[in-house]
């Protein structure tokens, strides 16, 4: 029954006392002490699918680039085409090493013509900030890591728009309600100036609100109170993980790391090998040569979705094997990167890297769950898509 030991060196977010007061079960994640669950993983998961959930994401990193060449600097630093992002819009992107390894997956927001916000994963944020500083040398831009002064809370679920709109200043309500997916705007919510983004990691509609750290508690309490009549509950990392898994979204450290390329992860579309500068010339970026070579050849392994035919869930690290005669385990063909019983679908789901030969939809495989071959079948991602 051993739980992860709580490391006293772990950092806490501006909302830590709120989590403790709510009776959260806390866990270490990316160097932070975060709420794993408040009451029940399943109840929190279902609340997000059916009503709304409130998440503290203040462990994420917020790195700002400002200046005339902020976009050009990001074009050179990331695999995507940041300068093509419209003001008020956002894109999913990645930062890679020279050899094409994924250092982190990111969301890039263009807040103004000469102002970008890069949101990085908690454990990677210091490194991403350092890389962005290094890669921006020679560009007319200033890179500022504002992670410490910025808190981030997410309201996710079908009732999210109602809840956020109910707290939004009258003059901003139309902006918030009319906001498209992967758009952002400044707005006054609960009397606090925040950056509202229609983004998320749950497969539901929802908003992420960037708020000054010293106003985070105020915003959190206002959202909890306004959301309660709509069925909103605070939700922890456990629900966040099962929600994103159902939605087929990769988690850095599981589906993505320095040993994976975007192509293996099925995310080759975010790599803009042929992006060009203002002069129309091909634009070099860190990792381009290695990624161009990878794009030419079929990847040695492919990220797939697996649906369990039994009840036992597969977990990260379990071997994916061929299904032998009489249900015995055959040769190893891959490994599970994430796995859980799907609360929404009622059967085990997993993501796994497998060899291309066994990656076709419908391929019958098995996962070695502690010595027993449990039947799984390859399915299309995502497992869950909101209707």
């Amino acid at each position, binding site marked *: *029954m051993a*739980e992860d030991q709580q490391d006293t060196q772990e950092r806490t977010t501006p909302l830590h006392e709120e989590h403790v007061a709510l009776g959260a079960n806390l866990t270490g994640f990316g160097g932070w002490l975060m709420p794993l669950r408040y009451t*029940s*993983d399943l109840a929190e*998961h279902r609340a997000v699918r059916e009503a709304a959930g409130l998440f503290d994401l203040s462990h994420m990193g917020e790195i700002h680039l400002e200046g005339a060449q902020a976009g050009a600097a990001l074009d050179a630093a990331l695999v995507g085409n940041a300068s093509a992002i419209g003001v008020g819009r956002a894109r999913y992107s990645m930062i890679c090493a020279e050899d094409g390894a994924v250092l982190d997956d990111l969301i890039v927001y263009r807040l103004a013509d000469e102002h970008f916000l890069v949101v990085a994963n908690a454990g990677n944020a210091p490194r991403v900030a350092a890389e962005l500083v290094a890669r921006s040398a020679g560009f007319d831009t200033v890179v500022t890591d504002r992670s410490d002064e910025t808190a981030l809370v997410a309201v996710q679920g079908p009732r999210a728009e109602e809840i956020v709109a109910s707290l939004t200043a009258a003059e901003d309500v139309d902006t918030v309600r009319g906001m498209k997916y992967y758009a952002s705007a400044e707005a006054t919510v609960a009397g606090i100036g925040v950056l509202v983004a229609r983004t998320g990691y749950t497969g539901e509609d929802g908003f992420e609100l960037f708020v000054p750290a010293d106003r985070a508690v105020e915003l959190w309490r206002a959202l909890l109170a306004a959301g309660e009549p709509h069925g909103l509950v605070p939700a922890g990392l456990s629900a966040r993980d099962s929600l994103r898994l159902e939605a087929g979204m990769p988690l850095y450290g599981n589906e993505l790391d320095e040993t994976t390329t975007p192509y293996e992860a099925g995310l080759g579309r975010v790599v803009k090998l042929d992006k060009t500068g203002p002069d129309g010339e091909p634009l070099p970026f860190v990792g381009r040569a290695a990624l161009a070579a990878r794009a030419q050849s079929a990847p040695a392994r492919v990220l797939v979705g697996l649906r369990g035919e039994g009840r*036992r869930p597969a977990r990260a690290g379990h071997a994916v094997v061929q299904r032998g005669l009489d249900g015995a385990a055959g040769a190893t063909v891959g490994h599970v990167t994430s796995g859980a*019983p799907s609360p929404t679908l009622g059967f085990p789901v997993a993501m796994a890297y497998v060899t291309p030969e066994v990656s076709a939809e419908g391929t019958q495989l098995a996962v070695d769950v502690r010595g027993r071959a449990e039947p799984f079948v390859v399915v299309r991602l995502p497992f869950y898509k909101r209707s």
Partner: protein
Amino acid sequence: MADFPENLRYSAEHEWVDDASPATIGVTSVAADALGDVVYLELPEVGATIEAGAVVGEIESTKSVSELYSPVSGTVVEVNQAAVDDPAVVNSDPFGAGWLFKVDVTSRGELLTAEEYAAQAG
């Protein structure tokens, strides 16, 4: 920390056992809370001979897997099929409807009183 029923005895691995014959065995509220929502139970088979302190099954939650130890030695005479079918009962009523299996006891392991268990688990 929650109160633990006085009439039960407890193992350091968070199982409880009553003093009836056959004895009923389950996991404590501490275990249930630490695991999170239980979604899958692997219990010993009826007729199996089990040893105190040995692994006899698994409890799987949304987030993790734990081994189930038997606090007693003997022969399994019944398993809680209702809990296998709907493992959420282990969370909602770990000392009652969420019991796991019953054993004809030949000997008991080193067990704790409710007070001793509370001191250790708290």
